[in-house]
C-alpha cells in the first residue's frame, strides 16, 4: 500500500519535472484570430527546420493574447492592433515590459454578397452604414432592402481597428459606435458564411478570408479620390485606405528561443509565408 503511494508520487514528480524541463524549448503564442493562420504556418515551418523546438499557437482575439502576455501565460502575443496604454500600465504593474515587433500588414476587406449590386463605397458611406445612420441599401445605390450590419465581437482587434479608423475616421476623440443593431459574430468565418448567404448583409474582415462566395467592395477615401480594390499591391502602395499593421508582442526584447522564432518570422522565408497566407509583408 505504502509502496504504491510512494511509487505514484515519484511518478507524478518525475512527469512534472519532465514537463518543466520541456518548457525551455517550447513557445506559447496566443492572440489575434486574424493572425492564427499566419502564426500556425510560421510555427509549422519553424518546427520542421528546428526539430526539438515546440511552438503552440492559439487564437482568441488580440485582447486575449495581450492579457495572457500580461498574466504571463504566453510568451508571444499576436495582435492586430497596438497595445493600449491601459494594458501597458497593467503590464508594468505585473513586471512585464511589452515589446512590439511589426511583422506584416493586413488589408481589411469590406464584403457583401455577390447578389448585391453595390460594388463601391466611400469611407464616409461605410461609417454611415456601420453606425446605423444609413440603414437601407437604396441610400447608397442598391436595392430597397434593409442593411444587415455584421461586426466582430469586442474581443477582436479587427473590431477595434474598424471602429477607430472607419467609424471614427482616425479621430481619437470620436464618439461614433457600431449601431446597437449590428450583429456581433464570434469569428471572421461566421461573417464570411452569413455574408455569402444573405444578400442584405455587409461585413468586414482580413483579406485572408476573401473567397469567391463574397464580393469585395472597392473603397474610396472620399468622393473625389478613386475607388480602390483590396489587394496586396494596393495595400503595399498605401492606396487602399483600410489597412493596418500586425504585431507580435514579447516581454522585453526577445531572447533565446523567442528571438529565434521572431527572427524566423521576419526572415525572407517567414515573410514569404506572410504572402502565402494572403497578408502583406512588413518589409520588402
Amino acid at each position, binding site marked *: 500500500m505504502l509502496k504504491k503511494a510512494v511509487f505514484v508520487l515519484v511518478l507524478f514528480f518525475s512527469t512534472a519535472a519532465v514537463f518543466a524541463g520541456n518548457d525551455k524549448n517550447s513557445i506559447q503564442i496566443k492572440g489575434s484570430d486574424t493572425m492564427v493562420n499566419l502564426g500556425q504556418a510560421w510555427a509549422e515551418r519553424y518546427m520542421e527546420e528546428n526539430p526539438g523546438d515546440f511552438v503552440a499557437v492559439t487564437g*482568441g*482575439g488580440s*485582447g*486575449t493574447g495581450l*492579457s495572457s502576455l*500580461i*498574466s504571463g501565460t504566453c510568451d508571444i502575443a499576436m495582435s492586430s492592433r497596438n497595445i493600449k496604454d*491601459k*494594458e501597458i500600465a*497593467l503590464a508594468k504593474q505585473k513586471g512585464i515590459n511589452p515589446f512590439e515587433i511589426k511583422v506584416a500588414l493586413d488589408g481589411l476587406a469590406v464584403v457583401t454578397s455577390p447578389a448585391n449590386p453595390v460594388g463601391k463605397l466611400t469611407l464616409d458611406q461605410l461609417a454611415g452604414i456601420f453606425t446605423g445612420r444609413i440603414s437601407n441599401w437604396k441610400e447608397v445605390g442598391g436595392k430597397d*432592402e*434593409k*442593411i*444587415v450590419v455584421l461586426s466582430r*465581437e*469586442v*474581443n477582436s482587434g479587427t473590431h*477595434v481597428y474598424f471602429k477607430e479608423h472607419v467609424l471614427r475616421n482616425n479621430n481619437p476623440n470620436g464618439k461614433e*459606435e457600431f449601431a*446597437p*443593431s*449590428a*450583429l*456581433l*459574430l*464570434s469569428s471572421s468565418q*461566421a461573417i464570411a458564411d*452569413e455574408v455569402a*448567404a*444573405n444578400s*442584405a*448583409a455587409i461585413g468586414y474582415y482580413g483579406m485572408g478570408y476573401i473567397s469567391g462566395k463574397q464580393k469585395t467592395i472597392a473603397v474610396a477615401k472620399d468622393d473625389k479620390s478613386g475607388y480602390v480594390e483590396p489587394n496586396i499591391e494596393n495595400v503595399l502602395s498605401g492606396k487602399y485606405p483600410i489597412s493596418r499593421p500586425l504585431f507580435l508582442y514579447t516581454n522585453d526584447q526577445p531572447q533565446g528561443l523567442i528571438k529565434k522564432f521572431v527572427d524566423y518570422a521576419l526572415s525572407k522565408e517567414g515573410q514569404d509565408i506572410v504572402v502565402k497566407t494572403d497578408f502583406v509583408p512588413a518589409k520588402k
Partner: protein
Amino acid sequence: MRKIKEFFIEKLIFICGLASIFFVALIFLFLTKEGLAVFKYVSPVDFLAGKSWYPISEPAQLGILPLVFGSLMVTLGAAIISIPIGVACAVYIAEIAPSKVKEVLKSGIELLAAIPSVVLGFIGMVTLVPWVKTVFHLPTGLTALSGSIILAFMAMPTIVSIAEDALYSVPKSYKEGAFALGATHWQTIYRVLLPAASSGIVAAVMLGIGRVIGETMAVMMITGNAAVIPQSILVPVRTLTATIAAEMGEAVVGSEHYFALFSIGIVLFIISFIINVTADSFLHKRR
C-alpha cells in the same frame, strides 16, 4: 486497526460531503467580490437600467438592460414552445403509450439531453437560421426565435422526465375513482391527473427554464448578439450568458469591463437561484 480505518473513511466522506457546499460558498464570495467592484464606476441604476452596452469605449457604457431583455425574450420563446410539447409528451409517456413505445420514447428523450449544446447550435446555424429568414421574410435569420427553438430542444428532456415522474406518483386510486365515476381516459387525464401532479409539473417547467437561461454556446451562435432591446421575437438579441462568454477573453483583468462581466454573473446567479428555489418549493409541496 479496523476502527482507525473506519474513522478515517468516515471523515473522508464527511469532507467530500462538505466540499460541494464549500465550493459554492467560495464561488459566491469570489463572484460578489469581483462583481460589486463595478459599482465604483457605474451606479447600480445605470448598470441595471442603462440601455447601451459599449464596454470597450472610453468612457465605457455599461447598461445591461438590453442583455436582460435579450435573455428574457429567448427564454420566454423557448418556454412557450417547450412547455406544451414537453408536458403533452410526458402525459403520453406516462398514461397512453404502450410499453414498447414508451421505451423508445424515453431513450430518445435521454439522447436529446445528451447532445452537446455546441452541436445543437451548429445544426441550428446551418439549418434553422436560413429557414427562419425565408419563412418570416427577415433581413437575417439570426434572431431570438432561432435561439428559442434550439433552447426548447434543450429544455424538453428536463421537462418531460420530471413531469412524467410527477404524473407517475399520482396515487392509482385517483385514476380508478375517476374511471368508476364514468370519466373517459382524456377527462381523467385533464381533470384529475394533471391537477394532482400540477406542483411537480410546475417544478419540471421551472427546472427546464433554468436550463434555458443558463445556456450559452448555442445562443451565442444563433441569436446574432446585437445589444438592442428587442421589440419582437424576430430580431437579433444578445443574452447575458453570451455576453460573458464572448467578452471574458478580452476584458483586461481589473478593468471596469471585467468587473461588469462578473456583475452580469451575479445577475444570472440570482435569476437561476430564484428559479431553482421556486422549483424546489413546488417539489416539496407535492410531498
